């Protein structure tokens, strides 16, 4: 949203510091210890994902310990060994790389395309806007994962196609969100002022309306990554995404189904990995929303 008003109603507020949007955000965000922890955890996950190849104690796909098949967690194998003799900890680390990349890329593509469509649909309400909104209504007529399954059925199995599918079904949500924002922003005085000095449409849209929509997009982006990681993992679980032996978390769980009774740790650790990762993104998203939404101020 637009920068917070300079006049502060609270008498206790320091008069010498100017509140930039960033300072305001940080002031609210650091008061939420849980969100801070989640943010730190996400940071750690990203670092682990980037350096996974250097961190793994064993090769995720080509290491087989035939003397330790199905062994539970031990000092040598922190998360135990799977029925093929592979080290589960190493596989989870490499899997983090796949899941985070899939979640991030698909949401980024969905957010960029959706934001652009939303800007156009909100600014030009005529036939272009109508067309874009009809298109997103149709995408909404399918339950999310069904749409993804349909797209993967057409494109074929594989992680890249899963990312494409998840990106496509993120587009309409961002388009609607941004359009709603634009509709409320474009009648504000500062936009009118831009019109009156003869600024071209694209300058107004990109330099004056887009920044106003960014807070919502960032919050939604963070929350959406969690959902996308789940959807991508679900598709792999259904056998449509990453294929064995790729250590994608959903695919690992699918492989573990057969050995649930004898070696539960093979299923428990990938489950926990997905749960904690998605939880961190969701908690972080909640925290960002509470610190970026100007409506939630007084408490």
């Amino acid at each position, binding site marked *: 949203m637009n920068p917070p008003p300079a006049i502060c109603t609270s008498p206790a507020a320091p008069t010498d510091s100017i509140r930039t949007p960033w300072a305001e955000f940080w002031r609210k965000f650091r008061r939420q210890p849980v969100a801070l922890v989640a943010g730190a955890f996400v940071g750690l996950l990203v670092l682990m994902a980037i350096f996974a190849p250097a961190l793994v104690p064993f090769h995720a796909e080509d290491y087989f310990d035939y003397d330790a098949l199905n062994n539970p967690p031990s000092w040598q194998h922190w998360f135990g060994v799977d029925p093929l003799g592979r080290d589960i900890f190493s596989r989870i680390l490499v899997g983090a790389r796949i899941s985070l990349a899939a979640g991030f890329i698909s949401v980024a593509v969905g957010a960029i395309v959706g934001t652009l469509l939303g800007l156009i649909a909100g600014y030009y309400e005529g036939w272009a806007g109508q067309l874009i909104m009809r298109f997103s209504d*149709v995408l909404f007529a*399918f*339950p999310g994962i*069904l749409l993804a399954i349909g797209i993967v059925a057409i494109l074929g199995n594989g992680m890249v196609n899963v990312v494409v599918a998840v990106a496509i079904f993120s587009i309409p949500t961002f388009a609607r969100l941004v359009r709603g924002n634009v509709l409320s922003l474009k009648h504000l005085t500062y936009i009118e002022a831009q019109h009156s000095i003869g600024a071209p449409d694209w300058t107004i849209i990109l330099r004056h309306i887009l920044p106003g929509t960014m807070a919502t997009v960032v919050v939604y982006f963070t929350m959406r990554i969690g959902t996308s990681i789940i959807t991508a993992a679900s598709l792999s679980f259904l056998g*449509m995404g990453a294929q064995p032996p790729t250590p994608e978390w959903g695919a690992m769980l699918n492989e573990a189904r057969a050995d*649930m*009774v004898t070696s539960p740790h093979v299923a428990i650790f990938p489950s926990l990995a997905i*749960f904690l990762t998605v939880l961190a993104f969701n908690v972080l998203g909640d925290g960002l929303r509470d610190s970026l939404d100007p409506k939630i101020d007084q408490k």
Partner: protein
Amino acid sequence: MLRYLIKRLLGLAPTLIIVAVLVFLCVHLLPGDPARLAAGPDAPPETVELVRKDLGLDRSIPEQFLRFISGAVRGDFGKSIRTRRLVSAEIAERFWPTFWLTFWSMAWSVTVGLAIGTVAAVWRNRWPDRIGMVFAISGISFPAFALGMVLMEIFAVQLGWLPALGAESWKHYILPSLTLGAAVAAIMARFTRSSFVEILQEDYVRTARAKGLSEPVVVIKHALRNALIPVVTMMGLQFGFLLGGSIVVEKVFNWPGMGRLLVDAVEMRDYPVIQASVLLFSLEFIVINLIVDLLYGFINPTIRYK
């Protein structure tokens, strides 16, 4: 009311037509020749041509589309490539297990979600709220297939209390519907809470308190009804989520439903089954959202249908 219903039904037409076109085109977008798929990989070219004629795939695209639509309206989607049975028969036996699974999941998750959300809003920022919201955010973060496997491990494998696979008795419904409903319960709880928190600050709630009504009467009679309005919309959206979720949960629990039918069909490129189930899933989703819109009128008397 009737006029509104008719208007809404007509409004559905364009969406339904586009969905039908997409589902129809899906056959032609699928990799591989559908006639070759139907005939089998070893069939000689003459047989493939015969099958092509038999399926009507040698006609022009608009002609095929008309045939598809007129068939679909009568519930005729042709024969499954995998089992050679009528698609309508396949779906008929798979429909009810999925219907009841989603129904029971929705029933428990909405009840529990509403209860948790209400309690959290009334005791806002105190321990019932915190516990409820920890449950809620965990619920939306635990993917259904992982939760299903963990529940199965605990209650079926370790404790042996409940059956793990299949859909024979009511006991079989417990674990899958718990798994499927968890995320919805969590979303409903979060949504009810935020809707309730806003309502509790309204003037009429203060008035109700000021005239000396007891807190339970204020919460249940004055606040709950108003808080329900946005919650009901959310319910409609969640049904779509459940329909989608059932696809995954059915695979975990080997449930003989529509979701597994679809997944198997995608695997085998069994396009008549894919078309019929995708169409049915979307139709269900659209109809449920319509019902939810109509439900509004009963909860919120200020809405007039025009």
